[in-house]
């Protein structure tokens, strides 16, 4: 190289070209991103937020919380779950049915006018004098199957189960016909599994 000092420019150009090709290959390979099942956080988060918002909307009274007489729709639905001894008057047994209608209309509403296909299963968890944590099924669109990828959202609901009005043969909040909730003001936890199906 000392006595034959020609062709450096070719060498430099060759090195530059090699670098450019390497960088190209590196960037091209890097542009491919696989969306793997491990990345489903994003859609999970959106579904969970949607469910929380739906329950929050249902649990908001029409007027201010400061008025103690105001109860939210969700409170009414949970409370009006009396199993009828005979055919009940009014809405005392229609809680799950009305919950189903309202939940689906909120959750499945899309901006393009069509409906989404969300499914849910709602369960009520309670505490009474004998059971630290008990539960009963409240409402659902269908059974969850092993392939369904569900997220869980919850909402506390304050209900007045002192039963000062209404027919006396409606024992309590009794899906199975037996009184399972204590007769007092209490908090129950509504858990809703939501999945797309």
């Amino acid at each position, binding site marked *: 190289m000392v006595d034959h000092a020609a062709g450096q420019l070719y060498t430099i150009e060759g090195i530059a070209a090699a670098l450019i090709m390497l960088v190209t290959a590196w960037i091209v390979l890097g542009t491919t991103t696989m969306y793997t099942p491990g990345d489903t956080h994003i859609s999970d988060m959106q579904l969970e937020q949607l469910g929380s918002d739906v329950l929050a909307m249902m649990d908001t009274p029409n007027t201010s919380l400061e008025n103690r007489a105001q109860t939210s729709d969700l409170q009414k639905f949970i409370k009006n779950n009396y199993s009828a001894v005979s055919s009940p008057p009014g809405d005392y047994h229609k809680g799950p049915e009305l919950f189903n209608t309202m939940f689906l209309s909120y959750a499945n509403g899309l901006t393009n006018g069509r409906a989404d296909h969300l499914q849910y299963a709602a369960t009520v968890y309670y505490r009474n004098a004998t059971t630290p*944590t008990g539960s009963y099924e409240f409402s659902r669109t269908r059974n969850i199957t092993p392939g369904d990828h569900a997220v869980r959202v919850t909402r506390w609901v304050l209900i007045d189960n002192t039963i000062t009005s209404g027919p006396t043969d409606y024992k309590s909040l009794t899906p199975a016909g037996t009184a399972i909730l204590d007769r007092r003001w209490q908090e129950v936890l509504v858990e809703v599994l939501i999945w797309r199906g």
Partner: protein
Amino acid sequence: MARLNDDAQWIVLMGFLISLAFFFLAILLNQSVVVGQTTAEGVLEFPKNDIRDFHTEVVRVSQANVGNFSDPRSQGILADFQNLSMNRKGAVASFNTSSAQPGFFTAKVYKINLHYSNGVSVYNETAYY
């Protein structure tokens, strides 16, 4: 290209710049696929909705006891919160409600204390209404 043919260098330069632009766009496309992933993980990890819901319910409980801050019904409700929260969410939840008249208020107001901890996130709050 040295000494081979020195014409059309502008075309070569433009081609090079355009290829750089393509690289840049490809990087944007690459990042866009998982945009929001870290945010989503953070949202799922932090029990924001649980804490908000808990706060709302405590306010509701405190205001359901209008004029009677030491209503015994709130004792059962506290146990409800503690049991269900521990068994269903693995979280410690506790609260108390009272009346108070801090110096900057002209009348008695509701006072609530919240405590929430799921082992990762701990939240404490004292609020006046």
